[in-house]
């Protein structure tokens, strides 16, 4: 069980805070006998999986009036005060109300912001985070990473939303299991997770970033290691192809209960001879591409080799679409 230190931005740590930080949520605290699945989800998912990453913030010297306008435009009730990723405090709706009442709306935020804040760590499992929601009246918590940089903000609503979604996934899985073996033969290709990445032509500095993300995502979801390796290789090859051979396109990751699907689609120029392109060693790469270590002509054949199902379609002048499907071996029990 990990240990998390309570982080108070300023002000005293209390003994209660220490205990709070180190004890995960008691199943009974959720009301009655909480299911194993819920507890497992709360342990598996971290604050960073659920938090809002686009943190709207304001600088210390900005006025309360500016804070009010930002909060109104963005419809938020809590505005972190931060500069260069460092968190200094929080302005809430209450501070605005007091400001309007007291007539100091032109004062700097730093004069009125709350500084005795509780913040959460990005890597903290939700099981710990929920304790904070239960024990403090604050509606939201800023989230810091291990370098004490402000990386997100999390509210109870974010947690509930994510939990409900994941719970529905788990319930579907259970329903399928109870219906019996024959259900699993029918196309249970209902994907419960989808993510898309843009791939920019010739952007070699970013080339492969989608594949790296895909690999990290699959590892986090504890999908079978050998499957993850094969998916990562195929995704990388296909992404590089889009990058160096096409006008640009997208990588799509789809996860269902028993498959992982990678689709690489680009806007052209299309492949005139698909069979030739899929052969080992054949490549249209030019010298510049080769000088950077690419273009050995293995991309499509590699992807085909590692996937369980491989499909490629192309129309010259229009597009190329490659789809690789990987079967996830069934876990025992």
């Amino acid at each position, binding site marked *: 069980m990990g240990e998390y230190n309570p982080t108070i931005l300023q002000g005293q740590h209390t003994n209660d805070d220490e205990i709070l930080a180190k004890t995960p949520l008691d199943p009974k605290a959720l009301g009655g006998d909480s299911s194993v699945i819920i507890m497992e989800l709360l342990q598996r998912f971290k604050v960073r999986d659920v938090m809002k990453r686009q943190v709207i913030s304001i600088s210390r010297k900005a006025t309360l009036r500016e804070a009010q306008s930002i909060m109104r435009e963005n419809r938020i009730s809590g505005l972190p005060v931060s500069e260069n990723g460092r968190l200094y405090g929080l302005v809430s709706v209450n501070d605005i109300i007091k400001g309007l009442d007291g007539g100091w709306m032109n004062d700097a935020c730093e004069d009125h912001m709350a500084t005795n804040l509780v913040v959460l760590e990005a890597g903290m499992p939700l099981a710990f985070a929920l304790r904070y929601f239960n024990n403090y009246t604050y509606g939201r918590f800023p989230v810091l990473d291990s370098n004490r940089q402000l990386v997100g903000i999390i509210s109870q609503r974010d947690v509930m939303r994510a939990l409900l979604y994941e719970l529905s996934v788990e319930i579907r899985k259970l329903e399928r299991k109870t219906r019996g073996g024959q259900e699993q033969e029918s196309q249970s290709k209902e994907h419960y997770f989808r993510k898309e990445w843009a791939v920019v032509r010739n952007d070699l500095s970013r080339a492969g970033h989608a594949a790296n993300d895909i690999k990290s995502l699959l590892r986090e979801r504890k999908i079978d290691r050998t499957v993850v390796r094969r998916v*990562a290789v195929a995704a990388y090859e296909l992404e590089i192809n889009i990058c160096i051979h096409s006008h640009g396109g997208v990588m799509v990751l789809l996860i269902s209960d028993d498959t992982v699907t990678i689709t690489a689609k680009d806007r052209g120029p299309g492949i005139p001879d698909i069979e030739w392109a899929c052969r080992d060693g054949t490549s249209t790469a030019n010298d510049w591409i080769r000088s950077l270590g690419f273009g050995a002509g293995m991309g499509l054949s*590699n992807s085909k080799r590692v996937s369980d199902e491989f499909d490629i379609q192309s129309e010259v002048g229009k597009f190329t679409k490659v789809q690789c499907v990987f079967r996830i071996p069934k876990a025992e029990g």
Partner: protein
Amino acid sequence: MSCEGRDGKGTEMTIADVVKILDGKLMAGDGTSPRAVGAVVANDLMSDVLLHDADDILLLTSLASDQAIRTAHIVGAMGVVVHNAKPLSETMIKVANDLGIPLVSSPLSKYDACVRLHDAFLAEERS
């Protein structure tokens, strides 16, 4: 090729050992990682690196680009060594830190590094 000793046991060489053996300098990533070298791959063509099935690859390369790191991440490599003291870009170092891949700069050529690593494996076996 995997680094099995004659009796089939794997090596215990970690990235910290590699830094020493190759007169290298750790430029990014966790130099204290306990992961041992599972296989040595000396290659500059990243698509070729992808063909290796081994776990815990130590990648020796002259390709000082983000691609070497990204490919290393895809195959679950335990470290990347860039040879001939080739200068490493800031983005390469950043990507290595972001993806958690130990990155070592060595003044040795790839050939010298191969020989030194092999000698070190043999020495380990004997001890």
